C-alpha cells in the first residue's frame, strides 16, 4: 500500500473503509442472527443451571426426564464452543466500524455504542472463560461461576439493546428480495452472479465505494484475465473477486464448518455415541477411577484418611437429624442391611461432560421413612469433606421422595472408590454433578 492510499485510510462516521467485500452489512446481519440464537441458547441453559444450583423458593426442579440437566448443560457448553468462530467472524466483519469518527453522533448513539462495548467485551470473556474453565484453567482470579453469571447478564442485556437498535436493519438486509440471504436469493452469494442494486436499499454490495479509495491505490498486477473475471464475478471474496478466493457464501460456510468441526470433536464428552470422536474435548467420560472422571478427589477434599481404611469405615456413621421422629445413626452394615436398589444414572457435570454409571444403594425416601420424616420433607445432604461451596447439597421435596434418589454404596458392581465418594454418596436423577454429594455423613431434614 502506498502513501496516497494511507492518506485515504481515514476514519469517517461509518468507520474505516471496508477493506474486504466480505465486510458487508448483510454478512454482519447473518452472523448476528446466528449469534443471537447461540447467545440465547447459552443464556437460557445457563440460567437453568443457575436456578438448579441456587433455587429460589418458587423454583422446583423436577427429577424427570432423567437426562434433562445433562442435555441442557451439554447444550450450553457445546453451543458456547460452537459460538467461537461465529463471534470472531462477526467481529472481524464489523471491525472497521470500530474506528468511526466521530465516535458517536448523539446521546442515543453513544448509549448504543456503550452497550455494544459491553456486548463485545462480555461476549469475548464469556466464551473465553467458559472454554478455559472446561480445562480447569482460571487465570482471571475470581470465582468462575459468579463471574460468568454476572458477565452473562451484562452481555445479554447489551445484546437485547443491540437487537432493539439493529433488528429492523437486519430484517431488511436478510429479506432483500434480490440479494437477501433469506429470500431465496442465495444465488446472490454465488460466484459469477451479478446482483443488481435494489433501489432504496442501503445495501452496499461488492461494488460499494466504502473501500474503493485505498484499495484502488493498492497497485498490483493487472492481468487481462483478472479484468474479465472482475466483470463476471462481482460478488466479494476474501481477497478479491476473480481470484478464486472465498465468496460470501463460502465465508459463511467456512464459519459454519468451523463451528461444526468444534462440535464434532468435542461433543463426545457429553454424548456417549460420539465418544470416539471426542479428540479435542478436555474430558473423557471413560477415563477415571471405576470408568468415569472425577473433579474432586478424596485427597483434594481432605477425606482420604477418613474413608480409605477398613478401620476408618468401621467408624463411619450416617446421621439423620432435624424434623424427624427419631434422629438416627447408621453404620455401613445398617445401610447394607436395608433394601438395595440399582439405578442407571449419569454424572452430568456443569462443565459439560457426562458419564453413565450403574449405582446401587439405599433409597433416601426409605431412610426418611425409617427416621419418621414428614411427607414433603426437604433434605440437606452434608459431606465429610472440608468446608466448601460443594460440601453439601439440597434435595427438594420431589427429589427427596424420588425412587431414583439413592445413597449409593456401589458403582458398576464395586464398592465406591474413595474418589467417587466412599463409603456413601448421593446420586439422583436430573441433577448436576456438583450436587451429587460425595462422602455423605449427615442428612438434615426439614
Amino acid at each position, binding site marked *: 500500500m502506498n502513501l496516497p492510499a494511507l492518506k485515504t485510510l481515514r476514519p469517517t462516521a461509518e468507520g474505516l473503509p471496508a477493506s474486504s467485500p466480505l465486510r458487508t452489512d448483510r454478512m454482519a446481519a447473518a452472523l448476528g442472527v446466528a449469534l443471537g440464537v447461540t447467545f440465547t441458547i447459552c443464556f437460557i441453559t445457563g440460567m437453568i443451571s443457575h436456578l438448579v444450583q441456587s433455587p429460589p423458593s418458587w423454583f422446583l426442579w423436577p427429577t424427570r426426564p432423567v437426562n434433562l440437566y445433562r442435555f441442557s448443560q451439554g447444550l450450553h457448553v457445546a453451543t458456547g464452543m460452537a459460538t467461537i468462530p461465529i463471534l470472531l467472524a462477526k*467481529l472481524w466483519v464489523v471491525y472497521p466500524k470500530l474506528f468511526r469518527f466521530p465516535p458517536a453522533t448523539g446521546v442515543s448513539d453513544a448509549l448504543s455504542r456503550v452497550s455494544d462495548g459491553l456486548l463485545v467485551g462480555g461476549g469475548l470473556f464469556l466464551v473465553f472463560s467458559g472454554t478455559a474453565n472446561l480445562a480447569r484453567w482460571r487465570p482471571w482470579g475470581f470465582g468462575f461461576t*459468579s463471574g460468568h453469571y454476572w458477565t452473562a447478564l*451484562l452481555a445479554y442485556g447489551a445484546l437485547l439493546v443491540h437487537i432493539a437498535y439493529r433488528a429492523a436493519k437486519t430484517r431488511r438486509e436478510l429479506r432483500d428480495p434480490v440479494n437477501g440471504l433469506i429470500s431465496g436469493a442465495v444465488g446472490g452469494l454465488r460466484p459469477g452472479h451479478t446482483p443488481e442494486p435494489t433501489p432504496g436499499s442501503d445495501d452496499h454490495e461488492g461494488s460499494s465505494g466504502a473501500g474503493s479509495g485505498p484499495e484502488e491505490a493498492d497497485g498490483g498486477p493487472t492481468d487481462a484475465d483478472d479484468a474479465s473475471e472482475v466483470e463476471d464475478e462481482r460478488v466479494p471474496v476474501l481477497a478479491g473477486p476473480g*481470484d478464486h*478466493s472465498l465468496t460470501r457464501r463460502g465465508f459463511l460456510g467456512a464459519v459454519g464448518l468451523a463451528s461444526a468441526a*468444534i462440535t464434532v470433536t468435542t461433543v463426545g464428552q457429553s454424548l456417549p455415541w460420539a465418544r470416539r470422536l471426542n479428540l479435542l474435548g478436555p*474430558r473423557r467420560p471413560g477415563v477415571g477411577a471405576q470408568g468415569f472422571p472425577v473433579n474432586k478427589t478424596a485427597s483434594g477434599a481432605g477425606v482420604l484418611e477418613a474413608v480409605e481404611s477398613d478401620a476408618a469405615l468401621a467408624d463411619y456413621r450416617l446421621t439423620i437429624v432435624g424434623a424427624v421422629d427419631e434422629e438416627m445413626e447408621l453404620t455401613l452394615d445398617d445401610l447394607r442391611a436395608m433394601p438395595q436398589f440399582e439405578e442407571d444414572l449419569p454424572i452430568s457435570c456443569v462443565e459439560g461432560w457426562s458419564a453413565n454409571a450403574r449405582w446401587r444403594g439405599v433409597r433416601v425416601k426409605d431412610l426418611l421413612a425409617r427416621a419418621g420424616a414428614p411427607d414433603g420433607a426437604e433434605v440437606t445432604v452434608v459431606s465429610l469433606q472440608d468446608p466448601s461451596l460443594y460440601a453439601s447439597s439440597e434435595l427438594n421435596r420431589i427429589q427427596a421422595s424420588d425412587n431414583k434418589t439413592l445413597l449409593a454404596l456401589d458403582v458398576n458392581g464395586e464398592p465406591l472408590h474413595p474418589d467417587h465418594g466412599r463409603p456413601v454418596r448421593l446420586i439422583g436423577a436430573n441433577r448436576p454433578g456438583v450436587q451429587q454429594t460425595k462422602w455423605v455423613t449427615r442428612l438434615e431434614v426439614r
Partner: protein
Amino acid sequence: MTSTSISRQESGSEDQPQEPDDGGAGPREPLSWPARALALGGWGVVVIGVLGVLARISHFAFSVPWREVAEWFIFSTLFHDLIVAPVVTVAALGVGRLRPRLARAPVAVGLIVSGSLVAVSYPRLRGYGESAANPSILPGNAARDLAVVLAVVWAAVIASVVYRLVKDRSVTT
C-alpha cells in the same frame, strides 16, 4: 483486505452513487415502540448485571471484584482488537496472494477451521489445569489429538485444491 483485484473492481464502480450506510454509525431512524421497550428491557438486564458486579445484589456466596471484571472485559476486547483481528487480516492478505489461485478458497476455509480448533484446544494444549493427583482431568495427549484433527482438515484442503485444479484443467482443455 487490501487486494488488488478488489480495488480494480471497486474503481470500476466509482461512478455509481453510493447510499450512505448506517450500519455502524448508530441509529439514524427513530426506534419503533417495541424496539424502545426491548432496549429498555436490555438496559434493565444490564443494570442487574452492574449491580451484581458491584455486589449490590448477591446470588452467590462470593461476590466478584468489579475492577477485575472490568479489566477482563477490556483485556478481552483489546486482545481481539489489537491481536486477533489484525492477525486474521494479515492471514487473509496472505491467502489473497497465494498461487495457484484455485487454492485460495480451500486454504482460507482450512485456516478458518484450523484457527477455531486451535483456539478451542488452547487451554487443554497448555495444560494449565492438569493435576498429578487426578489423571481424569485433561487426559490424553492434547498435541497429538489436535495434530490428528488438523491433519484431517488439511488433507481435505489438499484434496479440494487438487480437485479444483484437475477440474479447471479439464474445463480449459
